[in-house]
């Protein structure tokens, strides 16, 4: 198959993602150094042999914290996309398929939720239910519900009018069966594209929340937390802040490129 | 001859190189209405786009299109642009989408004049109103200001025609101009085209899939099948080529009342399925073995009547 230029998204995006998944995979079995062990003498040392990416202000190895952090990043991504997509698609399906009052009601709620900038919503949610990785994931998940609902609803509105649905109804298929069996598969591809996008948004949101001090709890490492903690040492230890920053940007870039490829693929 | 096409070939290079039109040759005389007929996918629209050099990026072509002493296929983009609208113009099938939805129709007609003439704004408006009148549009001042979506299909097609004739071009190409219109508007538009052709001496290349329509309107008709011209005749009734005859039989007419309608067996081969030999052979009722091997020449039977068939 001759990979044409349009497929650069797949090659580069996929490549980076595989590299990151590799790191995460390895991190489950082997970490160069303990993630929490403190040794003050090695505080903020530049990248050298035992500590490939240098050490942070507690003398902990940055590379192993990044690898452990990748677990948190993907965990946050997967669970928040999970929550967002399941709830969002469910709401979108109902409002798209049944229309009328339910559609109006659900759409107004999503409007209201969309009115809050994402960060604001998470801020409120976490101030109420307290900080911690679970709440961060749920907050980011809820933040992505409106986008999924919107995409699913427009997909359902489009598919609902088509003949094959009328045919299914004529054959006496129940509403649930029509939604689940007939319409959903056809609406799936824009949802998958949205899923990759909201996965990358989840990682960005976790970083932003950690910057505001609301994200994942010490001492377990998360990229966002490392980024916000390291910014103070930008002048004396630039490698400390560059490492998490680059990891976040690479992951988000890879996911966005895959999203674009899928979007291109979906239209073809 | 206003325009003469010699062995025009058009290829699509997707995964592999496919030939859509193969060495097409025909000419249109000055003031003549030439019909180009064929089922969809036979390459007739492609030919018109080739003449206007508006083919997609992934299409390539060879051969010659001589028009006003120049081979259009070798012209630079700039030279071609100066010809378009001034010497050759085109009328499209879908009047609904052919006009820019955001500009008023009068202005869109004026735009052609603006490019090719040095008329002042006021003069351009007068000329536009004149053109609109020529194409039988009513309450001109009011329609001038309207947007495309505020006009009916027929009115919109008249606007497109007005645009086409604005600079008195030598050749107008009409690519199925009436297919999207209802029957009554269709006849009005055809009469309009006929009237315009008589009044002015431009030649008209009329592309359609409707044999009846072409029969009344055109002085000469070329029938295309799978990228080749199979027959060129003046009157449909003295058609010789089996494919033309089959097409004529397929037209429902009161004489054959009670008999079931004839339809040609099989279907039009796609670009990749085309083999050598006569393109119509697989579906031709008179097909012999030789038909499958050699591609017949387009030979002249009687003055101007050309046929591409071994056994006619």
């Amino acid at each position, binding site marked *: 198959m001759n990979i044409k230029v349009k497929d650069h998204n797949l090659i580069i995006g996929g490549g980076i993602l595989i590299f990151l998944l590799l790191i995460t995979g390895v991190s489950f079995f082997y970490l160069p150094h303990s993630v929490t062990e403190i040794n003050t003498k090695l505080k903020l040392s530049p990248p050298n042999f035992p500590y490939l990416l240098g050490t942070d202000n507690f003398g902990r190895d940055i590379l192993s914290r990044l690898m452990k952090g990748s677990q948190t990043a993907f965990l946050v991504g997967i669970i928040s996309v999970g929550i967002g997509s399941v709830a969002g698609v469910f709401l979108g399906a109902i409002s798209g398929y049944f229309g009328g009052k339910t559609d109006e009601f659900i759409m107004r709620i999503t*409007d209201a939720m969309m009115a809050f900038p994402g960060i604001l919503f998470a801020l409120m949610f976490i101030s109420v239910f307290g900080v911690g990785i679970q709440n961060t994931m749920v907050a980011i998940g809820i933040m992505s519900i409106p986008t999924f609902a919107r995409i699913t609803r427009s997909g359902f509105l489009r598919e609902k009018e088509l003949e094959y649905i009328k045919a299914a109804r004529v054959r006496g298929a129940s509403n649930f069966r029509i939604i689940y069996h007939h319409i959903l598969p056809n609406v799936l591809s824009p949802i998958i594209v949205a899923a990759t996008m909201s996965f990358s948004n989840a990682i960005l949101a976790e*970083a932003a929340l950690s910057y505001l001090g609301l994200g994942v709890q010490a001492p377990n490492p998360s990229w966002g937390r490392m980024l916000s903690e390291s910014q103070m040492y930008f002048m004396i230890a630039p490698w400390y802040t560059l490492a998490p920053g680059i990891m976040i940007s690479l992951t988000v870039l890879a996911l966005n490129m895959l999203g674009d490829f899928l979007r291109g693929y979906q239209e073809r | 001859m206003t325009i003469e096409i010699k062995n025009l070939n058009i290829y699509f290079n997707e995964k592999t190189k496919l030939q859509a039109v193969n060495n097409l040759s025909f000419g249109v005389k000055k003031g003549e209405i030439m019909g180009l007929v064929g089922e969809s996918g036979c390459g007739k629209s492609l030919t018109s786009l080739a003449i206007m050099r508006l083919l997609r990026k992934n299409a390539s072509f060879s051969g010659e299109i001589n028009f006003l002493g120049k081979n259009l296929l070798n012209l630079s983009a700039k030279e071609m642009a100066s010809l378009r609208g001034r010497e050759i113009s085109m009328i499209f099938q879908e009047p609904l989408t052919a006009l820019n939805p*955001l500009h008023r129709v009068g202005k869109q007609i004026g735009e052609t004049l603006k490019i090719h003439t040095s008329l002042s704004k006021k003069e351009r408006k007068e000329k536009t109103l004149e053109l609109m009148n020529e194409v039988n549009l009513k309450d001109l001042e009011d329609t001038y200001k309207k947007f495309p979506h505020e006009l009916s299909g027929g009115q919109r097609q008249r606007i497109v025609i007005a645009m086409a004739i604005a600079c008195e071009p030598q050749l107008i190409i009409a690519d199925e101009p009436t297919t999207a219109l209802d029957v009554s508007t269709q006849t009005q538009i055809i009469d309009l085209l006929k009237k315009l052709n008589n009044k002015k001496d431009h030649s008209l290349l009329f592309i359609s899939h409707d044999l009846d329509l072409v029969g009344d309107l055109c002085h000469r008709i070329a029938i295309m099948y799978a990228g080749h011209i199979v027959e060129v005749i003046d009157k449909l009734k003295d058609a010789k080529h089996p494919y033309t005859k089959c097409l004529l039989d397929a037209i429902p007419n009161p004489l054959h009342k009670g008999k079931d309608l004839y339809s040609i067996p099989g279907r039009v081969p796609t670009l990749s399925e085309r083999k050598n030999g006569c393109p119509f052979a697989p579906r031709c009722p008179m097909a012999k073995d030789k038909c499958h091997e050699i591609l017949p020449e387009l030979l002249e039977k009687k003055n101007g009547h050309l046929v591409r068939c071994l056994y006619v």
Partner: protein
Amino acid sequence: MIYFIKRISIMIFTLFLVSIISFSVFQIIPGDPALSKLGIEASQEQIDTLRIELMLDQPASTQYIFWAKNILKGDLGESIRFSRPIKELIGERISVTLSLGIYAILIAVAIGIPLGILNAKYNDTKFGACLSIFSQAGLAIPEFWLGIIFLIVFGIIFKFFSLKYVSFGDDPMAHIGILTLPALALAISRISVVARHMKNIILEEEEKDYVRTAYSKGLSMNKIYIFHILQNALIPTITVIGMLTAGILGGAIIVEQVFNLPGIGTLLINGVTTRDIPLVQAIITYIASVVVIINFLIDILYRIIDPRISI
């Protein structure tokens, strides 16, 4: 006209919903505003008297009705932390957030649209591929990190931009100078969004018939782009800009924190940590209503510009 009225009623209902959400969220937050205000030293009875003064001991419903009535009257109540009318506080600082937001949107549009056009024009070429990677990269970098890097690179190392906030009134040029860096940090990710939408819209428009008609009239490629394709592409772009507002305001909260700009973002974060409930509710409702109103205006603007749709 009926569409107009329907849209307004929807908008009002959404705003009502927004106020309910923002009010109820802060009722169940742990932490006591009076204690946060008076700090460690205050005695219990000093705190209790302040709580009564601020009606904090009333049931939530009475507080909401009291608050909603005031909002309709335009009185946003008094901030606990700063013991000053909230309207005044927001009034002083809203200009910072708004000028930051508008500045960011302008940059995003000014760079996003041409980038989108270039992306569309060189879509299948090597250069096009690099362009699209570049524009995607913008989306990938977290705003606050970008802000910090700008702050340090342009603020400290090159000393281009001063960081001392100067209000528009005192010195407009310096005001714009100061907002450039934060606006850039905020705009970079929006540039990619605008560019991507622009590219897709242009690719769509290129296929349309009226473009072929324009070619057949003898127009040159550039003229066709400017007069025909871009105009038709601009209408959907307005909705894209509308979508940006929520994101921009969210981003502004963070960027203001990084650049220490006295906008309502920093005020909000301050309010949340010191449990200044009336202030936070007012700001959240304010931001949400700005987003809802802007989307409403964009929707109306969309209808006015596009002749095909009658209001």
